């Protein structure tokens, strides 16, 4: 595989995006980045700007107000990049299936601007930090 993908697998920098979640998945993500789970051994680091990121951790069902902003953040992430949909709402709308203000789950919103986007799904409500780590590692080794 090319050296770009190899180095992406060894050092994925993550940026956390909340598109209208109930914050349960956000608490699990922030707990994941504490020293207890030590994700720095995989090279994972939390960065403050989407322009520095390789992986977007997206939580929440994408509300109609958040959809254009999520697309803008995706465009600002330099390619190659991976999008992780964390939680049942981000994977397939969850409890908000018939909601009136929902623009669709994460993959539908992102595939509108980039049909070749790489999207990985970590279901759960909320997924445990161990599940998120396992999901990230599996997605990176499948690249």
């Amino acid at each position, binding site marked *: 595989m090319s050296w770009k993908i190899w180095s992406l697998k060894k050092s994925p920098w993550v940026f956390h995006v909340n598109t209208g979640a109930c914050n349960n998945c956000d608490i699990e993500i922030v707990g994941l980045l504490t020293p207890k789970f030590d994700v720095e051994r995989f090279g994972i680091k939390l960065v403050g700007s989407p322009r520095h990121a390789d992986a977007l951790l997206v939580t929440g069902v994408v509300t109609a107000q958040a959809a254009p902003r999520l697309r803008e953040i995706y465009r600002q992430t330099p390619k190659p990049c991976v999008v992780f949909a964390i939680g049942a709402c981000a994977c397939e709308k969850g409890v908000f299936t018939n*909601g*009136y*203000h929902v623009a669709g789950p994460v993959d539908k919103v992102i595939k509108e601007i980039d049909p070749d986007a790489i999207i990985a799904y970590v279901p759960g409500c909320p997924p445990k930090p161990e599940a998120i780590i396992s999901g990230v590692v599996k997605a990176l080794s499948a690249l």
Partner: protein
Amino acid sequence: MKLQELLNRLSEIKDKLTKIEQASEKRIYLYCEAENSYAVNKFLFEDLGLRFVIETGIDSGPPFNPIDCFEIIYHYSDDESGCVVNLKVFIRDREKPAIESITPFLPAAEWKEREIHDILGIDFKNHPNLKRLILSDDWPEGVYPLRKEVKK
């Protein structure tokens, strides 16, 4: 103030209310019509010094009310007795529901009334800034999502 004193003071505005109901030891429901809402709210907030908690809007009908109407519930609480006073205001006009806003003397109600206007379409008179709050900018005008007749 203590519970008995609260009940005594509430009977001063008895003529503006349709019913006073004490559901349990710490819960009082007051029922009122839309025209008297401003005066009763002013009395509860300024004269009795109750704490304003939140404001709720409901598209109400059977079995809670015999005919369909809109209902706005103002929740107040009293520090000393721990009593919660709920003021239920009924808006009978379903075509153009309107009520006077309490923002002039209670600035904390500004965003709550904006949200109720956004979602239920109730017009608040004398509101300083009645703009769209939580629906997105390209949501169609005139479609109020939480009304019973709007189905997805």
